[in-house]
């Protein structure tokens, strides 16, 4: 089955409601939208990782999802990244209802519209930086030469234009994370999901990565950063605070800073 989607609000399935009131960019398109989402893991006893979570991420936002470990942030990332399905509620990605798509369609959705950044970088040590980034487009039917061209541009944009043929093992931690960021960005996805992107980096390097997120966001990328680190959260434009599987606050970073004294 082939599913195409129109812009938000004009979905052919009519599944898109207007953006939730109170979100910072009501006028722009919703990229990720959760509506009454719950996730229960069927262990003994069952674990309610998320309880009735709703929010919308709009195009061009830089969102931080903050919470202590065990609060449900990673589950939230799985659901936003279509790597898992909610027990209850609905997730839309670029206007497409995730629950209605098959596993193969979700794969294609991830290939074209979602970029992932992980704490552990997950780079292939045996291939060059350029090919690592080019592999971000491997499952999108783009020929190798075009993949490499796009990878070179993406590496340029994260400041690694001079390291194209290096192996990841020859790079510093911060450089490796930049490679991973380039890989996430190479297909110009609708949203970039970053899971503790500075978790394996020292403070100065982490700050430079956050600075890069800022620049990329200003250049138009929609980025969601998941972190337990308040210092990281302070860099974000909007902060969704999660605790025990619930959203406890959602608003511009300024409000959150004032409220928490960060």
């Amino acid at each position, binding site marked *: 089955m082939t599913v*195409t989607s129109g812009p938000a609000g004009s979905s052919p399935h009519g599944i898109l409601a207007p953006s939730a009131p109170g979100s910072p960019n009501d006028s722009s398109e919703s990229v990720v939208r959760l509506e009454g989402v719950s996730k229960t893991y069927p262990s003994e006893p069952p674990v309610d990782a998320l309880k009735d979570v709703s929010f919308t991420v709009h195009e061009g936002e830089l969102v931080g999802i903050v919470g202590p470990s065990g609060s449900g942030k990673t589950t939230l990332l799985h659901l936003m990244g279509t*790597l898992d399905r909610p027990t209850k509620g609905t997730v839309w990605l670029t206007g497409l209802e995730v629950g209605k798509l098959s596993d193969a369609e979700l*794969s*294609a959705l991830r290939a074209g519209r979602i970029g992932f950044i992980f704490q552990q970088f997950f780079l292939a040590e045996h291939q060059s930086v350029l090919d690592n980034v080019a592999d971000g487009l491997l499952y999108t039917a783009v020929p*190798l030469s075009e993949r490499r061209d796009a990878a070179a541009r993406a590496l340029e944009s994260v400041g690694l234009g001079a390291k194209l043929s290096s192996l990841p093992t020859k790079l510093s931690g911060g450089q490796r994370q930049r490679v991973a960021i380039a890989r996430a960005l190479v297909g110009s996805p609708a949203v970039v999901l970053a899971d503790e992107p500075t978790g394996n980096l020292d403070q100065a390097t982490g700050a430079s990565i956050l600075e890069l997120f800022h620049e990329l966001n200003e250049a138009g990328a929609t980025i969601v950063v998941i972190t337990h680190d308040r210092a990281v959260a302070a860099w974000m434009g909007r902060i969704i605070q999660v605790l025990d599987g619930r959203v406890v606050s959602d608003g511009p970073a300024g409000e959150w800073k004032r409220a928490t004294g960060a």
Partner: protein
Amino acid sequence: MNPSLAPARLRARDLLRLSSIGIRTRKLRAGLSALGIAIGVAAIVAVLGLSSSSQAGLLAEINRLGTNLLTVTNGQTLFGQTAELPTDAPGMIGRIGPVTSVQYTGSVSNANAYKSPFVPSIDTNALSVDATSLGLPADIGTTLSQGVFLNAATQDEPICVLGAAAAQRLGIDKVFQGERIWVGGMWFYVVGVLNQAVLTSEIDSSVLIGFPAAEKYFNFDGNPSEIYVRTVDSAPQVNAVDSVLAATANPESPNEVDVSQPSDALVAEADAKAALNSLFLGLGAVSLLVGAVGVANIMVISVLERRSEIGLRRALGATKGHIRAQFMSEAILLSLLGGAVGVLAGAASTAVYASSKGWEVVVPPLAWGGGFGAAIVIGAVAGLMPALRAARMSPKDALWSV
């Protein structure tokens, strides 16, 4: 405006690159796990190649000796006694159109051959004394290894020529002047030794003397017991001669004549060599099985070790099918590698052995094609389970469990 959500097909080149990751990054492990398959394929290719090569060697020998030799032997009478061929049988056979040459021997049954008079008469060494016509060696496809054959001047003298086995059993490896043996109670001088007569092995254990000598010294009746007939070298002509030979040799009682084509026995032997050495094939098959288990084992380990890679690929947009294809083709590539090494090793050992024997080197397409085919099948079978496991892996578990 959004692109469709049909998953992209992997290009062949990308799939090849993906499937070689495991092999390129863990060369020693890949090599060792492909070794079982290499050994199995090598064993099978070598067995098939060696039997084909030895068959080719035998067929070449048959070709050299010719398939146009027919032998006429005295058979048995209705009462079970040894029949005799008429003395003029060779002459009558010689007048059959397609016959090109007729030679014959007569068994001198009342004479035995010994190294010396002191050998007990019971130690005959299973040698026979035969009277022979003068053109025998060329007719039966053999040559003299030493000395000369009987000729018109020597055929009525006490002079003999030994078959290859006869010379060996009498302990004569070189013909000296004055070399003699004790035949039927008198000395016979040895003037020549024949090479092995492949088509007519009865000549090998014969002590050959002239017909006139046999008649003179042993009261031989002159009846031939074996007639060697060469015909025009074409199968229909050979068959035509074959069908009239018995009646021509003994018109009175053709049923007392045995006609045979000696090359038939060699052709049958060649066919028997093609019947494969099942023991070694069985060993090869067992080795292939062990190799398959090795590849499956390595693939299972590889899938477990590469959980995070699998998770990452799923996150990058790989479908279950993409993951399955990657690991499946890795297993096939691995065993194909083993298969290629095995085919080369098997062909090389065939070449070495066959050329040491002077045979033509034959590695039948069944052997190398079968070797590659078996490798592909084994890879597919061994890779199936690990590939399915890899594809079933939940991407989030694969990524967040490390």
